[in-house]
């Protein structure tokens, strides 16, 4: 069994994790932790799946994929505003509002499915995304574009520099006239939009409907990729490839003679175990943005 033939499968699984992780990187670099990535991906996936099913049923088949992704992105962005408002304007504990959105998303997605489709899942659509000549899904290209734009924005634009400044030392950034509130709002909204997009990517390539298990912890894998990738676009990309690859191996190991005897759980554990070990090993040095997770109080310091 040639591993090369499995590359499309691996990329299919890596792409959404990477997209969500890049979003997570933006929000953490601006100084706001967003553990709601998981829930936001669920909301994006559910709305993308519903949109695609409804438009397909109405006869707009192929065009609806793009619209479904945009809807997923918009829904993710919309719900991330809750987190932004709570953590930036009200200086709330960011873990609490993130947890709240995760629980809310669990309920809201299936609630909507119950209202729209009278079932605890969205109805199956007939055709999801199709692969190109290389066997790749469009999501792989979307992920590459997202990474390149992210790198460019982060290091080549004024906005990116301001973003990094707000995550390291918001008071200093404020003193030179950077609008910390605006920057942090942007960071959270980028993470919401990309998480929603990632959710749409998962549901339109890997399955044919949204169920309560569609995301299955991949938002948390993305979160792990952010810290294991040390908050840089290249690091996060490599981490997402490693973690997504491990997830893919859990699926494809059955076809590889050497690995087929190994329970898939080992591959499932890998991202979490690697991140935990990395956190312990690098515990002395701090690669995280200095002000990550700390609300900024104007004039407090």
């Amino acid at each position, binding site marked *: 069994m040639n591993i090369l033939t499995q590359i499309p499968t691996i990329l299919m699984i890596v792409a959404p994790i990477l997209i969500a992780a890049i979003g997570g990187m933006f929000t953490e670099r601006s100084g706001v932790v967003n553990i709601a990535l998981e829930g936001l991906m669920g909301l994006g996936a559910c709305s993308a799946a519903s949109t695609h099913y409804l438009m397909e049923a109405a006869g707009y088949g192929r065009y609806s994929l793009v619209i479904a992704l945009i809807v997923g992105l918009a829904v993710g962005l919309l719900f991330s505003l809750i987190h932004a408002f709570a953590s930036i304007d*009200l200086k709330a504990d960011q873990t*609490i509002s993130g947890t709240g*959105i995760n*629980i809310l998303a669990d309920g809201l997605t*299936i609630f909507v499915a119950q209202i729209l489709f009278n079932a605890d899942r969205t109805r199956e659509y007939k055709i999801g995304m199709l692969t190109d000549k290389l066997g790749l899904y469009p999501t792989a290209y979307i992920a590459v574009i997202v990474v390149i734009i992210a790198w460019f924005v982060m290091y080549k634009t004024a906005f990116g520099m301001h973003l990094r400044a707000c995550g390291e030392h918001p008071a200093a950034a404020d003193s030179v006239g950077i609008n910390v509130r605006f920057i942090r709002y942007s960071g959270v909204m980028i993470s919401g939009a990309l998480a929603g997009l990632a959710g749409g990517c998962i549901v339109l390539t890997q399955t044919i409907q949204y169920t309560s298990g569609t995301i299955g912890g991949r938002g*948390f894998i993305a979160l792990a990729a952010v810290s294991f990738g040390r908050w840089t676009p290249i690091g996060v990309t490599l981490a997402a490839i490693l973690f997504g690859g491990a997830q893919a191996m859990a699926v494809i190991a059955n076809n590889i003679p050497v690995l087929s005897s190994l329970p898939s759980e*080992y591959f499932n554990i890998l991202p979490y175990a690697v991140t935990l070990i990395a956190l312990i090993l690098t515990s002395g040095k701090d690669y995280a943005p200095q002000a990550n997770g700390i609300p900024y109080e104007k004039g407090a310091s």
Partner: protein
Amino acid sequence: MKDNTAEKKSFFDRLLDSDVMISILVVILGFIVGTLLIAIVGKNPADMFSSIFDSMFGMARNNGTWNFRYIGETFAYSMPYILCGLAMGLPARVGLFNIGAEGQYIMGMTAAQSVALLVTPFPGLWVFCIIAALIAGSLWGGIVGILKAKYNVSEVVATIMLNYIALYSSRLISFQLPGATTYNTATLPAFSKLTKFLIPTSNLNVGVFFVIIAVAVYYFVINKTKLGFAMRATGFNKNASKCSGISTVKSITTSMLIAGAFAGMAGAIVLLGGAFPKGRIITGMDNYGFMGIAVSLVGNNTAIGNLLAGILFGILKQSQSLMQSRNIPKEITLIIQGLIVVFISLRSGLEIIKQRRNTKKLRKEALSK
């Protein structure tokens, strides 16, 4: 007239100062938004409230008789919520955010079913199953405590990782147990099951006593012991505690050890007291641990608050099946719970209001003189 305004202000200030009032307010707010949502999608909110009412008081609405099974199930569901709430609450007192109750719960459950299936059955086996769960959950929590205290690893990230490591480890371990198939193991021996209690038609079992003991232990540890004082001091100001000779490493680690034991016990009670006769090979989270976060937040990390909030969440869980049969999507309970947590995070906004009011008051006083 001057007195009148002063009194009004003091009522509002008292409201802002009272954690209990704010918790109640937040819960009511969650229910209001949930009710609106039900009304917006064209369902009848009365059906939702009647389901909740019936789960609370055990009324069988269709024929007007009492059905105590509902009350029994409500309390049976409350048990893991209360325990996981305590598992979140104790570390919170030390300033830790324990998202890891889910993993500690899973490890407790796995240990309990391993003992139940591997040890030759004898009367009283269930006691050893629960002890095994306490130890397993405690160790799983303790890891986080040591990582946080010694290596300063963020407990939020560490517990999220450990939740998923627990999920897949539980699968790996349970696959090795007797009679393991894809979804379950062999039937658990009768000696390992928890005896039914009070309402035999429901799943209410002797676990209730352990929950009561756990709440009492929580209250006692926090309020009456030196350890509890050290924990609260660490939570208020880590550096000041360190300076005054309190071992913050010890309070952080101990809090996580005890928290893990609470969550582990929840896992054992759900497994051994539930209706499912076999051991479980889980494919996902049961979410009691995550909900424990909400329980503890609503209960303000106090023993009694946790107890009441846990019962509220038990009521909501039990009412789910009634809601579904009355044409209300049962996920509305999750939405309400999620909203409650979101609203609690908005509570810090009240601090800002409080500050503004204080500044205004001071300014007024200064100007009037």
